[in-house]
């Protein structure tokens, strides 16, 4: 099994640092738009992400959400990251609005361990920090990636 490298995934992630949205569905749609897939595939992915959200919010607290799904439309793990201009209600476990969203999509076939390990590492890392602390003050995507990679350094074992 290939090693799960979060910095590699972060470096290849699609990132928007000024997402403007008033509701959860719209922000998910905006993040899916960042992926380089066709419109039909975006619709499939959107439905899959929404169905997962119906099973339970992926707002893990502290202003962070990790919506995720496994979908036929991707051939490898893909990530889109959005920083919201205005905090948004995401039905998070702590009731706090969300400012940082990690959308993770993995293919449905093959081992699901890589995907689950990634989900676990991201959730664990963010449980130790808070997006409320202006951690991501940069408006530059490359600097943002660097900050994020530093956060995950100790978790990427």
């Amino acid at each position, binding site marked *: 099994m290939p090693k799960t490298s979060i910095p590699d995934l972060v470096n290849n992630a699609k990132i928007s640092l000024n997402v403007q949205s008033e509701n959860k569905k719209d922000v998910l749609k905006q993040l899916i738009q960042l992926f380089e897939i066709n419109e039909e595939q975006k619709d499939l992915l959107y439905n899959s992400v929404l169905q997962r959200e119906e099973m339970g919010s992926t707002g893990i607290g502290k202003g962070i959400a990790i919506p995720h799904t496994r979908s036929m439309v991707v051939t490898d793990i893909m990530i889109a990251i959005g920083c919201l201009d205005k905090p948004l209600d995401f039905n998070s476990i702590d009731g706090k609005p969300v400012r940082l969203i990690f959308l993770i999509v993995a293919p449905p076939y093959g081992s699901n361990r890589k995907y689950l390990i990634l989900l676990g590492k991201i*959730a664990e890392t963010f449980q130790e920090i808070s997006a409320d602390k202006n951690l991501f003050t940069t408006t530059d995507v490359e600097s943002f990636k660097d900050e994020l990679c530093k956060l995950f350094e100790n978790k990427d074992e």
Partner: protein
Amino acid sequence: MNKQLLLLISLQELDILKKDKKNEEEVGFELEDLKEIEEARVKIVSELPDHLYRKYTRLTKRYGNAVVPVVNNICQGCYLVFPTQMISPEQKNETVTTCPSCGRILYWAD
């Protein structure tokens, strides 16, 4: 995309969600009961022709996954390399096609 293929993909993605529930809970996510997912599944099954649902069920039982993507002309279920002339670009995902080797239902992902 062919409507029946779309339904088959949606059905499989719902089944994967159900299967992942336990693993996700181990990672720390809190998931509720599967009522909405079950209702969505019943709706999809009602829209699928019987023979395709039977095929889906049979393939899932045999392989664990009934629908697989084709990437670079390779079936991601059994890794058979398809000849380029097997299907024209216009026909991809416009019919329900099965792999001539493993019989899984194919979705052209690229």
